[in-house]
């Protein structure tokens, strides 16, 4: 596992306070900078209903959504197995 992804996981472990969300967003930005997308427009999608986060989040916009939305922060934490 790369150092950047480890840092992202660590950042997502915290409770979704504004400061934790901001730290996770920064960690995600560092991960994306170290691992630029190979595909043209990679987008994280989900089949949720009545969620506060969008069904489709372009990967380069994940940091913004992490910082803005605690439910999305929690989802990302579950995806990377830190919650």
């Amino acid at each position, binding site marked *: 596992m790369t150092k950047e992804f480890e840092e992202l996981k660590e950042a997502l472990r915290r409770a979704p306070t504004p400061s934790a969300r901001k730290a996770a967003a920064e960690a995600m930005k560092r991960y994306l900078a170290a691992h630029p997308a190979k595909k043209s427009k990679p987008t994280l999608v989900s*089949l949720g209903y009545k969620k506060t986060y969008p069904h*489709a989040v372009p990967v380069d916009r994940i940091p913004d959504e992490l910082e803005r939305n605690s439910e999305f922060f929690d989802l990302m934490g579950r995806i990377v197995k830190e919650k």
Partner: protein
Amino acid sequence: MPTTILMSDFDLPTRSCSGFMLRYICPRVEPVQLFGMLVRRLPFQLTAPQSDIIIGVGHGEKDAFTGQSEAIILEVGKYSPREVKGKIIKLISCQCGVELCPDLVANGAACAMGYADDFVWICDADLASTPWSDKLAATSLMPVVDGLNALLDGKTAQEAFDIELEGYSRNAGVEEDELVKACLEFNHDNAVLLGNAGARVSPRPRITFPIPPPPIIAPIFQD
């Protein structure tokens, strides 16, 4: 026996997932295929009782599965048991494995497969008109396709479920992108099979179209 296959198509995730159903599942099932605007409650009520298998792509939550533009298709306590009795049901949707799938089995479904948390993957938004050509999405969606094809080959629900899980593990094992790998492992860990694991449907002929469908030109909703 007809197959009821519900393929919502109104935003990027439904387009991406339904695209794989169109390419890899539809050619081998009878033409009771509900796509786009037809994925609504009434067409489902008319077709489901005649089918032995129901395959659904749509948004969902713990107690509900939705179709086109999030029209409710199945909701705990709000459907007739004859719509699900004796059927194998696969819902490619978020969280339906928590309450809806157990309810389907309690109302007579032979078995129900879903996911206990969000069903997530990464796709290439630039390939929305030809979603079946999206290799990034294929990493996460082909295990689902392989499991469904196993069911349609006449394998048991447990065998099909195991094929799907093995697909996630195999792809995660070779995936270099850690985010894609995390999504694969997440879906693997949240997949659920409830009811009679030995249930099976009559085998369908294995037909693969040599050429993909034409591009889908219908617009999709952007969040």
